[in-house]
């Protein structure tokens, strides 16, 4: 029987699909319907991720082998309707209608419907089927539905929808084979969708009442699936009573994130150490193999310090990115992330951001890169942009060595004050981010925060395969998109810190001669010390006279009101691409030697002893505080800029982010220095 008779108006806008002509299949379905799991089961872990041309909507593409050859599978964004209200919906609609370029137009569609939630999923079906793309329905979560006491009438559903319905259990690879033959089947005999005209017209005007569609969805749903038994969703209900509680829910979420962070910091440091060691070793090996003298020295330096150092400096971020995304994927897949957004919603609204901004902003405390990449969950474009803009203000792990150095300079022997200063730096980052968020929402990105409407799907065991696939994806995107830019700038900065070359200073030459004498007198230890001193002097002199050093010297007047001397100014410049570089630059410039930067005590004593030309110490309380504030707030991270460009689709926003953070950091450091100088 037909639940609702809706007239069919066959129109053949599309050329009829020839056998063997199937080249592209689009996967379309609600979020949480198991689309990603099915995509991974169909294509394996070899998906390519890119953006739909001209948008920031992500497109995953993989390959599926049918009898006539490989077919490309396009994973359209998860959506509830095709009404073109969001960019995702617009893109999905355009793709299905063949309005994108030819390479993007699917010949057929796999419509993913969640058997446990048929009524809601069928609403999307009411919009997809009238588009007359040959469609196969993949019914997911059939086992969960049966466990929940839902009996399904698949032949009837197939009749109602006018297309083949294949039950699949993607995590176990069940039904994938049947789905393949069904796809081949529709090529041979395309089914006619049963609903068209009225509902199809309804979809073209967004103001049209949705009721007819929902009535259709509900009647087909209740006709083809029985109501769930009492046990269905009971676990979810029980969990939600606790997890969505106003206070307990927030507390538990804090606990969950604490564990995730602990994992990031405790696990990531090992691979980060390996990466650093590996690149150090490779650099050393290359340096020892390369011939010495003249141009070769430059080439060695370029390879070792510029290229290998640059690649290493980029890859060292990967462990954190990977671990954070892995856990976020698990949390999202389990259904918990929706609850997290739910409980944080009210708090986040106070700064004009939706609850979904919370996880990215929190993640930024590990690293701004994955944080910015994870803002895609925020539907509203303005809210997403604000989140991206303020995320780098949060104290990421690369700031920790800088904080550690400054705090050690200030309060090495007063642990309480030291911890307070450290905590204060973190707090300053958070406060600055929230204040800036409010400011942006009131000025350039004005507009109400989208009030939250979020589906709270049933909890389920997260899929390791999905999490791994997402993690691999994000890492590749980072390496491909951000990596190349970072590498180029690393080489440029290397060149600026290396050229023009200068001869070793007279003192260094004298020391070398002296060292040779001392060695001849039978005191190799003293000679070694002198050589090291000579090398420090040479490096110091070289950096001081390089382009970077000259620029640092040139911009020194700009930073003088902040209490920075010319060496700190050079450090600010060289750490433009990666903030932690300031530590090694200061080590070189103050003649500690790069290796000693690891040794806190030596570094600290040398820096504290450093004097300005007029004999006053460089690192006074005021200068230290000002430097700390500057590094809390300044951008000083090139990878972040590259990722912001990718996620916003424009260098404009990346440039704006750099500009506002620099102005903010400068002004705050200026105020800090001036006020602190008055007091001291």
């Amino acid at each position: 029987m037909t639940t609702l008779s809706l007239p069919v108006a066959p129109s053949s806008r599309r050329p009829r699909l020839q056998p063997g002509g199937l080249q592209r299949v689009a996967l379309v379905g609600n979020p949480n319907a198991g689309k990603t799991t099915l995509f991974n089961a169909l294509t394996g872990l070899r998906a390519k991720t890119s953006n739909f041309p001209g948008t920031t909507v992500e497109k995953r593409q993989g390959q599926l082998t049918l009898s006539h050859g490989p077919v490309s599978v396009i994973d359209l964004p998860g959506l509830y309707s095709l009404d073109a209200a969001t960019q995702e919906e617009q893109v999905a609609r355009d793709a299905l209608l063949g309005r994108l370029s030819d390479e993007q137009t699917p010949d057929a569609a796999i419509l993913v419907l969640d058997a446990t939630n048929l009524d809601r999923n069928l609403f999307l079906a009411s919009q997809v089927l009238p588009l007359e793309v040959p469609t196969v329905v993949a019914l997911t979560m059939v086992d969960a539905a049966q466990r929940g006491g839902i009996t399904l009438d698949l032949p009837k559903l197939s009749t109602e929808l006018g297309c083949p319905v294949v039950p699949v259990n993607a995590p176990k690879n069940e039904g994938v084979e049947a789905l393949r033959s069904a796809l081949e089947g529709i090529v041979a005999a395309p089914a006619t969708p049963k609903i068209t005209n009225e509902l199809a017209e309804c979809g073209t005007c967004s103001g049209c009442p949705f009721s007819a569609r929902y009535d259709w969805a509900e009647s087909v749903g209740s006709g083809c699936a029985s109501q769930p038994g009492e046990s269905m969703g009971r676990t979810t209900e029980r969990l939600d009573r606790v997890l969505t509680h106003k206070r307990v829910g927030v507390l538990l979420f804090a606990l969950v994130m604490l564990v995730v962070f602990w994992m990031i910091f405790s696990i990531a440091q090992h691979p980060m150490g390996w990466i650093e060691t590996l690149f150090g070793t490779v650099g050393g090996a290359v340096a020892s193999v390369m011939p010495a003298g003249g141009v070769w020295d430059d080439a060695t330096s370029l390879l070792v310090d510029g290229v290998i150092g640059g690649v290493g400096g980029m890859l060292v971020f990967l462990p954190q990115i990977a671990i954070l995304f892995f856990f976020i994927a698990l949390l999202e897949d389990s259904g918990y992330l929706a609850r997290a957004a739910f409980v944080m919603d009210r708090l986040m609204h106070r700064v004009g951001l939706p609850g979904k901004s919370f996880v990215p902003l929190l993640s930024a405390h590990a690293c701004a890169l994955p944080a910015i990449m994870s803002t895609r969950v925020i539907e509203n474009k303005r809210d997403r942009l604000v989140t991206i803009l303020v995320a780098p203000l949060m104290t990421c792990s690369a700031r920790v060595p800088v904080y550690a150095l400054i705090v050690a300079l200030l309060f090495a022997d007063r642990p309480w004050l030291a911890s307070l200063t450290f905590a204060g730096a973190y707090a300053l980052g958070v406060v600055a981010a929230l204040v800036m968020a409010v400011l942006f929402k009131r000025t350039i990105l004005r507009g109400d925060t989208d009030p939250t409407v979020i589906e709270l799907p049933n909890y389920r065991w997260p899929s390791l395969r999905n999490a791994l696939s997402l993690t691999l994806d994000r890492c590749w995107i980072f390496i491909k998109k951000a990596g190349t830019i970072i590498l180029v700038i690393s080489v440029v900065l290397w060149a600026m810190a290396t050229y023009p070359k200068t001869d070793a200073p007279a003192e260094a030459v004298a020391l070398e001669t002296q060292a040779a004498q001392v060695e001849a007198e039978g005191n190799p230890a003293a000679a070694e010390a002198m050589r090291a001193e000579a090398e420090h002097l040479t490096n110091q002199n070289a950096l001081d006279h390089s382009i970077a050093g000259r620029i640092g010297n040139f911009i020194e007047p700009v930073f003088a009101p902040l209490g920075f001397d010319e060496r700190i100014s050079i450090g600010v410049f060289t750490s433009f691409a990666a903030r932690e570089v300031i530590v090694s630059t200061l080590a070189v410039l103050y003649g500690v030697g790069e290796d000693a930067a690891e040794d806190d005590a030596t570094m600290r004593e040398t820096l504290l002893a450093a004097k300005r030309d007029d004999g006053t110490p460089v690192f006074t309380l005021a200068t230290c505080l000002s430097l700390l504030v500057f590094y809390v707030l300044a951008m000083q991270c090139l990878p972040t800029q590259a990722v912001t460009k990718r996620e916003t689709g424009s260098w404009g926003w990346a440039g704006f982010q750099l500009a506002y953070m620099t102005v903010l950091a400068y002004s705050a450091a200026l105020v800090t220095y001036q006020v602190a100088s008055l007091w001291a």
Partner: protein
Amino acid sequence: MAGPETPTDSGDPTPTPPADPDRASRPGTPAVLDPHAPGCLDLEAKPLSTLPPMKVAVIERVDEEHDHADRLKALGLCVGRKLQVVKTGDPLIVRVLGSRLGLSARLAERVFVAPCMNSGQPPEAGPALTAAQTDESKTEINPA
């Protein structure tokens, strides 16, 4: 994979969603109440945000500007749908179309619903008043 024949309406000529008393009496699931059935709905529509927990109601109108209304509609908060409040507060949780939605109170204030007098009970006789009667689109689902 096909389950046994569903107990509901195979061969049943009535095209409207069935008012199945078995469903309606089950706790935790929104009672499927026929909006056309008499006596089900309260006379006065009130904001969703004022509904007590577990109350079942039918959406009568949504006073929201364009883009938010679209988001609501896409998730099933649309005229004529039945919903049940699972958790009150801000944001609140409603069950609609078989799944749970988190909804900020600001939006819930703009969704006007006609509460069912006997939530969880089969509809009883009473004054015929439904939200759906004022909605033209409803005419489509009348028995053809």
